């Protein structure tokens, strides 16, 4: 039984091929998906998606969205997704530092909400590079 993974962002298809297993970060914890998983719908947190192809794992940074799993088809809809191989480590680290500084300076509810979001996204990108296993 083969498992097909489809990762879509508003402007492109980031991934559309078979995988052996995935580990998805959701708002209620991590979900491991193997073939013949029960059909579920879940919100996807800003976090790491781990994909296993044969014995190799690769990581993708997801910027929040939704996933539906069923009939051995996984469809992930996210605002943005980046393969860890496409992320420049230095740039990601710099972006993280800028985001941290912005959060310290944030005033008021709205700025804090925006700064927090930016920080979580920046952190996820850095984690994606470091989480290669």
């Amino acid at each position, binding site marked *: 039984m083969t498992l097909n993974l489809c990762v879509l*962002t508003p*402007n492109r298809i980031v991934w559309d091929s078979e995988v052996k297993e995935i580990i998805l970060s959701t708002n209620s914890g991590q979900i491991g998906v193997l073939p013949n998983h029960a059909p579920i*719908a879940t919100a996807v947190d800003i976090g790491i998606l781990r994909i296993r192809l044969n014995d190799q794992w690769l990581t993708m940074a997801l910027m929040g969205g939704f996933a539906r799993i069923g009939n051995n088809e996984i469809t992930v809809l996210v*605002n943005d997704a980046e393969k860890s191989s496409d992320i420049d480590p230095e740039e990601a680290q710099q972006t993280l530092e800028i985001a941290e500084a912005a959060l310290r300076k944030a005033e008021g509810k709205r700025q804090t909400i925006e700064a927090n979001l930016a920080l979580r996204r920046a952190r996820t990108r850095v984690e994606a590079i470091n989480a290669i296993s």
Partner: protein
Amino acid sequence: MKLVAAAKVRRAQEAVVNARPFSETLVEVLYSINEQLQTEDVDVPLTNVRPVKKVALVVVTGDRGLCGGFNNFILKKAEARIKELKTLGLDYVVISVGKKGNSYFLRRPEIPVDKFIDGSNLPTAKEAQAIADDVFSLFVSEEVDKVELLYTKFVSLVKSDPVIHTLLPLSPKGEICDINGVCVDAAEDEFFRLTTKEGKLTVERDTIRAETADFSPILQFEQDPVQILDALLPLYLNSQILRICLGFTIDGAKPRLLERFWRLLLVLRH
């Protein structure tokens, strides 16, 4: 020269085509979850209809001076809408997208602008995200009660209409409504094909309706249905904004195309 503008239209069209898998799947999912939620009393912040005291007006302009024709149209329409809102006793704030609009509003400090966002010739998800983020936080923090989007709707190669759509609050049925309350089903998607007919450049429009059939037996929700909707609606917002911006890009390329076509004709005639 004609080829350059035609290439731009083609690239914009490709972008629209690339955007379709996402929005089709999203609409399908929204429909099926909405069905499952009909009986529940759901409070979803982005669909929250409340008495309007302040409106955010997102004004989308093109970058190039050559499209000046309809940039001026849009800015005039923006000024008209601002006047209307003032007459209704409503407060307002502008979010400007695109260099032309940005410089226009910078020269007018009496108009409050929340954010200036640089456009680009082919808007990416990042730009749509920037607009969505700003609009999202303004609406959810209740700083504004309504968000309207002002842009140019492509009608034909020689006609465009400036349109104002209500972006937020989102209609729970997934409809997109303009300010007169005329609603369009979000499952419908228009796309354009640049072709030639009898030697003349034309654009054909097709409407595609996304399949909204049931995906599978009832999906089990990992979280509360409200959390799932909370995750879906920003995605929907992003994709709508991107769709509108892409439509605008196709629009921007075509007056330049026409202009070159005429010039070529004039040259040939002599």
